[in-house]
């Protein structure tokens, strides 16, 4: 009582230390829900492009998600390049949606995208479907063109291009 300031100091110090300790303790319990080391280690996939023939599309698993690997025909590439980019919802040229070889040249026939509709996560149908001959998402009617760009329907963005690199002309490593 004689020194209320000392008393207050002790209470505040103890209370603050307890609160800080409690807050720090929370972190491990939150962080444990993040991807574990084994999940993170599986974060890349290699794809052999030579097995994908012209006009064909394969779907590979990457981080538990479908990735479309399409070998486009010259007609599809032409279609994708003839679009006026400025009028698009999510403007991007066809080239911007590709990754060059280590030498810097492009292989425009191979289009690689995460096969997940940017609206609410359904997997769009391929094989030149939809109004723009690319992909069509049946869930709520989003149409993507032959470069995987959103053209019509509720989706806000183009189909996502994952991070990938060419290990050789025919092998890409996704992730």
């Amino acid at each position, binding site marked *: 009582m004689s020194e209320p300031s000392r008393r207050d100091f002790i209470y505040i110090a103890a209370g603050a230390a307890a609160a800080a300790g409690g807050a720090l303790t929370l972190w*491990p*319990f939150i*962080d*444990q*829900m993040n991807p*574990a*080391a084994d*999940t993170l280690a599986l974060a890349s996939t290699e794809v052999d492009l030579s097995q994908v023939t012209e006009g064909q599309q394969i779907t590979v698993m990457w981080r538990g998600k479908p990735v479309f690997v399409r070998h486009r025909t010259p007609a599809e590439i032409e279609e994708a390049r003839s679009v006026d980019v400025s009028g698009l919802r999510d403007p991007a040229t066809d080239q911007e949606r590709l990754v060059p070889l280590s030498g810097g040249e492009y292989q425009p026939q191979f289009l690689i995208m995460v096969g997940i509709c940017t609206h609410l996560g359904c997997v769009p149908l391929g094989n030149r479907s939809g109004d723009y001959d690319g992909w069509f998402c049946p869930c709520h009617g989003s149409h993507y063109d032959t470069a995987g760009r959103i053209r019509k329907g509720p989706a806000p963005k183009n189909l996502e291009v994952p991070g990938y690199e060419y290990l050789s002309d025919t092998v890409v490593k996704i992730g």
Partner: protein
Amino acid sequence: MSGPSTYEPKTGIEKWLDSRLPIVRFSQDTMINFPTPKNLNYWYTFGGILSLILVVQIVTGIVLAMHYVAHVDYAFESVQRIRRDVPWGWMIQYIHANGASMFFLAVYLHMFRGLYYGSYKAPREILWILGVVIFLLMMATAFMGYVLPWGQMSYWGAVVITNLFGALPIIGETITTWLWGGFSVDNPTLNRFFSLHYLLPFAIAGVVALHVWALHVPGNNNPTGVSVKSGKDTVPFHPYYTVKDGFALLLFFILFAVFVFYMPDILGHADNYIPADPLVTPSHIVPEWYFLPFYAILRAIPDKLMGVLAMFASIGVLFILPWLDTSRVRSMRYRPVMRWFFLIFVGACLLLGYCGGQNPEGWVLHASRLATVYYFAYFLLILPIVGLIETPKPRPASIADSIHGDRGKPRSDTAATPAPAE
């Protein structure tokens, strides 16, 4: 003790809430203003400590359940994955595993406290019985939890304990088959144990709520065993006991942390790091340390059925304890004869714990038989008889009195007047 409520809603919102859901009033009356004897010592902090360990076990358990796989082919591996790959998994797993031991350490101290200060006696019989129910649920939970990592001790512990029920005549085999969900301990057993291990702690939490409710009707007992007479005997729970319990809790957590961070395996068994193998029994099956006294009672008796019955009876007898003690005096502080029997009882329990970890041969077998006899005699003979013939020491007239005088010894003026019946 849980006299009239002292809560007075001040603002309009508080009044509005109080006439609909008096939750603030309830919290104030039970956790803030609750009148608590002034003289509670550190043995009385274990109730609070237990409540917190229960929370720790539930929280870490829920986390583990997010990563654990209840399947005989993956259970062991999933625990290794938690240890190695899940962020912080190693720490959370060690906390949960050692938390069980801390839980039992605290509960045993809590129970011996009750035995010594006569906290099981009127008017706290229900409180005590609810405590025994909690204890039983804890044992079931811990046993099933230990099976989950599916190591050798998990598996063979499950085999041995479930086979106890096979000792029952006629229905024994039907019961074990039913428990297993098959003809041996196997995947169905593991799955149901996981389900129940997740469920039971919440049942414990429910019974703890009843336990605390039953505590708040008569109020706490105290080291003198003398009932609260007036406001002079008590202080409000908060801040007096929140801060004392908090301090004790932190000391307990230091011990807990020493186990978790510096000797996480010392209370466990090396064999449980070998995946379960139904074809090979480990050379020496022992339960976790907290079951050893009961395991010793089981093995002290040469007959399978009688051993099982004795083991269950050793806990069953706790249910009728309040009616076995015939003394009018609660606290053993004032029971010069009974106190010695109590000390021997603690010794017998420790001896049983020791014997439970050894092979039941030679002197170990004799010692565990002797201790088993004493264990039952303590409840069934000593407590009833000594209570009738012992002359208790004079007790203080009130808790406040006991504090003024030389601790526990009444002042000369009160010693002359016989202590009123409690």
